[in-house]
């Protein structure tokens, strides 16, 4: 009985087929990066959808099986593990959206035009509604009871920006030359990251490298 399709075609444009194993590994490293990065990273909804499809497929097959303890238990355990990763990934993203709501919405508005959005459409809608609810809440509970000239909900002042200069641990997946660390005294230091080496440094210089997968946060 074939319990899983190992090969999934990613899209009609790409000839290449990606195995479920690769999708799972990508999703795991995306989860790790998202947990450890101070800002919200581009979404990997394609991977999430793919995994969810696989999970549904597996669950259908497991239910077809008689209650043979072993195989069903093993598959169920693996599905629990995968569900944990997906849930935690989405939860982390949502909590970042809630925390940094206003800057994220501002940046996303610019990005939607160029087609490189970081949020999925559902997340974008969630962010907008969250902001609206927050504004209404503040207005009804506090601002309307303030003197007239203080009743504005000032989005600029309410915005909380992620700390791009917080320090993170990272591991280089490939050799990267010329990462520039800005020093406060104005002396920029340029370092090279060898493949497989681990470092601690500010998030800002390596933000792009995280986004295109050249380094992994640990």
């Amino acid at each position, binding site marked *: 009985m074939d319990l899983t399709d190992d090969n999934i075609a990613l899209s009609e444009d790409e000839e290449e087929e990606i195995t479920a194993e690769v999708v799972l590994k990508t999703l795991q490293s995306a989860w790790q990066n998202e947990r450890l990065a101070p800002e919200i990273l581009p979404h990997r909804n394609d991977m999430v959808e793919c995994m969810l499809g696989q999970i549904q497929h597996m669950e259908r097959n497991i239910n077809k099986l008689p209650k043979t303890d072993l195989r069903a*238990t093993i598959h169920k355990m693996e599905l629990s593990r995968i569900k944990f990763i997906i849930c935690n990934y989405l939860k982390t993203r949502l909590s970042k959206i809630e925390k940094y709501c206003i800057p994220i919405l501002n940046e996303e508005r610019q990005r939607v035009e160029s087609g490189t959005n970081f949020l999925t459409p559902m997340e974008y809608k969630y962010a907008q509604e969250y902001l609206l609810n927050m504004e209404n809440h503040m207005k009804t509970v506090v601002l309307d009871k303030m003197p007239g000239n203080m009743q504005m909900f000032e989005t600029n002042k309410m915005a909380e920006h992620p700390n791009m200069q917080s320090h993170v641990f990272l591991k280089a997946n490939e050799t990267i030359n010329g990462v520039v660390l800005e020093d406060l005294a104005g002396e920029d230091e340029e370092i090279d990251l060898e493949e497989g080496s681990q470092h601690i440094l500010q998030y800002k210089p390596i933000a792009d490298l995280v986004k295109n997968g050249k380094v992994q946060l640990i």
Partner: protein
Amino acid sequence: MDPYEVEFIGENRIISVIPNFSYDKIYLICGEFGPFRAGLPINVPLWLAMMLKQKQKCRIVPPDWMELDTLENIKEEEKRSRFFTKMPNEHYMVEAKLILGAASEDVPNAAEIKTIIKDIWDIRMSKLRTSMDALMKSGGGYGRLDHLTMMEINSAKPILPSAMDYLLQIQKKAQQRLQQPSALNTSTFSQSGSSQNT
């Protein structure tokens, strides 16, 4: 990140077990394993091995590095070297904890192995502490930590990155003070002078 999340990541490692049952190939999402034949060793992920062991369906084969001589050598190497040495694998602590916890009867000299691994961990942690101290004292904004495993880095996570963040903030504030022309220079002296007179 919590230690159990590091353990979760470490559980994906492959180890060898000897099942006491026979079964066909299993097609998991993370790969295919099998066929299982009673008495023949087979490679499976660590989480699967732990589950099989708890159901008493297999025996764990300790990994190559988990024996007295290898570990003694690693310990000596670690004591001698000023820097961190390469550990047998990225998640040695997770593997050691799970295997020695669930399957200590399958591992020869389990008690001594526990002691040696604990010693290695202590040596590395004290090296980590001294190097964190040195990094902070040199006002560092950057450090290199090769050969440190994820669990050890995770133990430093509550303290080192936030300490460096605060150091950066203090340095920024100090720099702003320097750059701002001080408006306090002569006027306060003359004022305090005059107030003393009256």
